């Protein structure tokens, strides 16, 4: 299907200033780190980024924030990033905080061709301000609109030349719902295989949703909160 591109640079070559991007990942887990590096290198600006988190100071979307490439963040939790907080408090950065489930569901809505969805999340809070509220069966729901993103950029563990994707463990998170939602979807993978090497029953994101795919090299996969236990004496 001619979806395979050679590099992150090629994959993001036509991302322009002012565009809206979805970026997969939860914290630093399952983050499209190669595309983010390419965007930092490319220096594209005034981006609106839809991503659950904003990375940390020196990794993930934090790298784009440091370079002032981001005009607006749409996220559910941004509490691990000092530079982010500084830009937010100074007014340099516009931020729309969205409940995490609402964020995921607005992505899914885009991928499923549903213009809007109903969720009770945020009823009675400032999230509800200016939004339509509807009561179904005695319970209030907010009407939330599907996202409209120029590009979705996701990270999978494995992909094939048809664009089919498989995620690994909790690195799945927002990636499949964002993969469905982009006008153009770019997938970076740790392993790129031939069509037929992924069991069709194991595909998480069908290739129809994926427009470009490439194999990233030397993933850093940084850990945000390393928590361990000691081995018991055997």
């Amino acid at each position, binding site marked *: 299907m001619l979806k395979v591109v050679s590099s992150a640079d090629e994959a993001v070559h036509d991302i322009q200033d002012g565009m809206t991007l979805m970026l997969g990942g939860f914290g630093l887990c399952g983050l499209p780190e190669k595309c983010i590096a390419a965007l930092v290198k490319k220096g594209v600006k005034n981006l609106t980024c839809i991503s659950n988190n904003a990375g940390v100071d020196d990794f993930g979307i934090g790298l784009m924030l440091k370079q002032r490439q981001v005009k607006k963040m749409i996220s559910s*939790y941004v509490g691990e990033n000092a530079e982010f907080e500084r830009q937010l408090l100074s007014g340099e950065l516009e931020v729309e*905080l969205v*409940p995490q489930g609402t964020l995921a569901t607005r992505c899914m809505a885009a991928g499923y061709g549903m213009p809007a969805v109903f969720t009770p999340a*945020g009823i009675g809070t400032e999230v509800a301000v200016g939004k339509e509220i509807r009561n179904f069966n005695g319970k209030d729901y907010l009407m939330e609109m599907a996202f409209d993103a120029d590009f979705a950029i996701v990270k999978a563990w494995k992909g094939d030349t048809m664009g089919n994707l498989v*995620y690994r463990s909790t*690195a*799945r998170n927002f*990636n499949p719902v964002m993969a469905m939602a982009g006008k153009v979807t770019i997938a970076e993978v740790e392993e790129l295989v031939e069509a037929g090497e992924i069991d069709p029953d194991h595909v998480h994101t069908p290739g129809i949703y994926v427009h470009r795919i490439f194999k990233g090299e030397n993933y850093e*996969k940084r850990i945000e909160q390393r928590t361990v*236990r000691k081995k018991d004496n055997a």
Partner: protein
Amino acid sequence: MLDKEGIAKRIAKEIKDGYYVNLGIGIPTLVANYIPKGMDVVLQSENGLLGIGPFPFEGEEDPDTINAGKQTITILPGSAIFDSAMSFGMIRAKKVNLTILGAMEVSENGDIASWKIPGKMVKGMGGAMDLVASAENIIVAMQHVNKAGESKLLPECTLPLTGINCVKKIVTELAVLQVLPEGGFKLLERAPGVSVEEIEAATAGKLVIESDVPEMAI
């Protein structure tokens, strides 16, 4: 008076066999350590996992396997991984039996504030708004008073809300309290060594004391 581990221990007693439970960040995370052995309980992590296991052994951390607090974890046998939309789908559809989370303030009608201090701190609501809007069984784990010594159990919340009319029970270092449907904090149990008077003094919202309040057994 209870320490954090004591609060977690007391909350663990609310968990029943067969429950699916979502544990928030902070004290709620500790609850996992006190679920009775042999009890079949599955912990849901809203980043997309049913079946949170203990922290990995040193050197066995997997960057792809984390909980909603972004901590490295392990996955138990019989687990399932799913995407964020399904994760909150099952939360909205009330498939999760018990939600335990922290709070900055709780009001006597069950409102909760937990995500923002205007002008000071805006980390975001994460999944908390989704959880409190849908869960039918919500326990708040928190300190009874804040660092300035002010009560966190109020007639009305002063901070931006996370959700309304949703908290069912509160466990603090001083007491276990039930939020009454008609409003008010009903005192169910005192922490060991804590008097009703001390709890009254630390509670700004309406405190309902119906009879002899037993000391909690943990």
